[in-house]
């Protein structure tokens, strides 16, 4: 019996080890591979609460098996009718209270820590914050990221510096969405009526393990393409982030296409697309006029529409029929049928919209 118990314990640990190593998900997506202070805090709480809960389950399981094995009906006797036991009842009231206190204290402290956005309020002489702030605006089915200090706007791909706290203002422009980068930290809703604020920190080493790209998700049902409202997070060291921000800011006028094909594409773009998509990063236009993702650095991005591979073929498929790839999106039907030549030209132009030389 004792040997059996030992063997069980061993297999339990083996299972746990297996679960923790092999089954902890992808480094760019999983909450079990925390890549930053917020996710780490939450992961630590998970581990603490899981440990307590596994303890509780173990106690219940032991009593459970003893009961089920030992007290099977063997004869027709009537067992003693026991009313209860004050001693036992007090034990199983007090012990859970103590266990919950052990969990409640770090929970409350973490809840306040994660909500501390005071650096967002501290303005320097220029009226800007020392901390990096990003205004996130969620839309049916795309994301806009505005950097008020840098005075630039981008879409679909959030670029952030690693190893420092990044502060977020969150809002939605149509229906409720929820902003979530699982590997980096928990989510916060983007409401339609008020700005929600929180911070995240992106760990440099963990970002390198994830090839500098984290996956972001919408976590609140928002319509047919809720499942496809993904975004990417490019987490790079501070100096690279500064280079990127400067390069973005340097785009004062729409970048002129160089090849003939691209010039034809730019013409198509100016006729059909520019009403919604901007190709300059300045945040001067009012929110209501920013109807679609900013494409200033489209060519640098990792995904098309947040979900498709960043290839010319996928871009053409998307432009031909966005409805197939993102049902219910707002782009379908806003421009006429494009000929294959126009598609080739437009693709050439869009893929050339780069701010980083690589």
């Amino acid at each position: 019996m004792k040997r059996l118990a030992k063997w069980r314990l061993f297999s339990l640990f083996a299972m746990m080890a297996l679960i923790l190593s092999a089954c902890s998900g992808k480094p760019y997506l999983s909450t079990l591979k925390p890549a930053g202070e917020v996710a780490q805090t939450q992961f630590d709480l998970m581990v603490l609460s899981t440990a307590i809960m596994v303890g509780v389950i173990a106690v219940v399981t032991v009593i459970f098996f003893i009961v089920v094995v030992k007290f099977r009906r063997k004869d027709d006797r009537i067992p003693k009718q026991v009313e209860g036991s004050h001693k036992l009842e007090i034990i199983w009231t007090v012990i859970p209270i103590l266990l919950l206190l052990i969990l409640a204290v770090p929970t409350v402290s973490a809840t306040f820590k994660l909500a501390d956005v005071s650096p967002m309020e501290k303005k320097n002489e220029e009226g800007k914050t020392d901390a990096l702030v990003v205004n996130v605006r969620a839309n049916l089915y795309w994301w806009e990221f505005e950097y008020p200090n840098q005075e630039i706007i981008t879409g679909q791909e959030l670029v952030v510096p690693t190893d420092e706290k990044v502060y977020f203002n969150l809002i939605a422009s149509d229906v409720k969405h929820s902003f979530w980068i699982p590997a980096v930290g928990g989510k916060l809703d983007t409401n339609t009526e008020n700005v929600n604020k929180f911070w995240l920190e992106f760990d440099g080493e963990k970002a390198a393990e994830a090839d500098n790209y984290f996956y972001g998700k919408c976590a609140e049902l928002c319509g047919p393409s809720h499942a496809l409202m993904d975004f990417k997070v490019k987490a790079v060291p501070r100096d690279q982030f500064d280079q990127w921000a400067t390069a973005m800011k340097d785009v004062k006028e729409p970048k002129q296409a160089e090849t003939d094909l691209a010039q034809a594409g730019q013409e198509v773009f100016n006729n059909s697309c520019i009403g919604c998509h901007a190709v300059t990063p300045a945040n001067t236009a009012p929110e209501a006029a920013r109807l679609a993702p900013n494409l200033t650095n489209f060519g640098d991005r990792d995904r098309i529409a947040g979900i498709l591979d960043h290839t010319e073929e996928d871009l053409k498929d998307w432009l031909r029929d966005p409805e197939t790839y993102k049902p219910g999106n707002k782009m379908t039907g806003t421009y006429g049928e494009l000929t294959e030549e126009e598609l080739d030209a437009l693709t050439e132009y869009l893929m050339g919209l780069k701010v980083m030389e690589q």
Partner: protein
Amino acid sequence: MSTLAQKKGFGAVLWDYLTTVDHKKIAILYLIAGGFFFLLGGLEAMFIRIQLAVPNNDFVSAGLYNEILTMHGTTMIFLAAMPLIFAFMNAVMPLQIGARDVAFPFLNSLGFWLFFFGGVFLNLSWFLGGAPDAGWTSYASLSLASEGHGIDFYALGLQISGAGTLIGGINFLVTIINMRAPGMTYMRMPMFTWATFVTSALILFAFPALTVGLFLLVFDRMFGSNFFDPAMGGNTIIWEHFFWIFGHPEVYILILPAFGIFSEIFAIFSRKRLFGYSSMVFATVLIGFLGFMVWAHHMFTTGMGPIANAIFAVATMAIAVPTGIKIFNWLFTMWGGSITFTTPMLWAIAFIPSFVAGGVTGVMLASAAQDYQYHDTYFVVAHFHYVIVGGVVFALFAGAHLYWPKMFGTMLNEFLGKITFVLFFIGFHLTFFIQHFLGLWGMPRRIFTFLPGQGLDTANMVSTVGAFFMAIAVIILLINIVITSVKNEKVGNDPWGDGRTLEWAIPSPPPFYNFKQLPLVRGLDAYWLEKMEGKKGMSPAEPLGDIHMPNNSFIPFVISLGLFIAAFGAMYRAEHSWGIPVLIFGMLITLGSMFVRSVKDDHGYHIHKEDLEDSNDKGVKA
């Protein structure tokens, strides 16, 4: 039922059920209607799992998927779980307290027909332009943006069926307060009756919040008000509060009766009285009370701020304490007992580890800071299926097997029952355990598909395979029901042999007046006490006399039908000219039949003493 049909003819039986005010027949109506919606919700669940079996699947389209997930949740909660629980409450609670019926038999019937027509109305949306698609929570910004009439079906259908539930809850409260047999003090009531009592109180206080929320939604969508439109000074977060002030107690409305059923089962099949009865009662009341203090834990990521989040986190954790008390009391009810593994007992035993697993993830979710990671992911999906399936659905299966003989006079096949149990148990854990990890690996809930290359493929496939096990188990249960009904082998008062409470002291099924003479209750587990003293039945508390019975009535059906018609008028008012007339016509039917009910005196009838003496084998034996 089949023998009855032969005697009376199909039409007569149908008319009897359409007009019945007998709590036992209404219980059967709830069981059939709830069972039908349970199958419907289960079918929707299968569509969901098939769609998610592989990445980038196109089994259903994105918009249709949202309709299916919305209707799965709404149907399972409002039209399957609650009516099935009401079926057992109706069938058993009046018997357990030694009453001849509920306090308001007419209202009991009205409650059922309101639920039924509300449920039918909601499901007609499938054929009339599309079902609701904003989730069972129907959060305001999305539910206002939703096109078509889906959300209108949701709001009006739930409004009608919610009124039925509210009426039922009030009825049970009054019944338990006023109609207990002589000697049945509060602290001698069976646990299931206690659970019914607390649940009914929860319904009384929780449903008005839903009613108000739905009315505001109806006005916003159909009559141009702006309660939830921020551009016009409204606020969508108010909807979240309304919904969860109702929605959180709602989950206790589901689980407390489940606890009640399991409490009966553990005592019966361990041959032991419930361990720590008074602390069980206390825990039930405490869970009911705390259930109203924690709604905002569904909104930790709404942005309420750290103070509100911390308060609601700690309050939510507190619920684990009374729930833990219950788990240990059940274990110690079995401790030292003499356990037999009948089908109901198997479900009850399996419930303990399953529900504990769901309970501990509940504590993890309560911890606000980590909930930011869990919220709206498959971790939550896993959690609430562990408590609702592992708790409520297990209890419904257990209760169905336990009370089938009391309701229909014949026992479900034990062998098939155990096969159902094994398949469902395996399927349940296979489907939902892995979903905890899906959530932790970054899979949001309510997504119609997922992209490959995110490490989610295998686990989703496993989950889908599990769902098929559950589907097969339910099919076997249906076969079991058919076989049992065809064979129809009659059983006696106490078919399980170890019945403890009053319902097992009378025939199965009981005569329509339940107790010929009201029984005298001398303690907890009244029937068991008499059995242990060598008596065959209860001692009567009154001499044999005339019994006053209510007349059947068709009016509840007509009142509900009127609201059903009016709802169509309200919905199509804007685009069809016949909308307003139909609205008025429907309301006239409802108000007219209410008027008839008010002015026409219905004194019921009496069963005379002499007739009762003829049938010596029925009712309480003196």
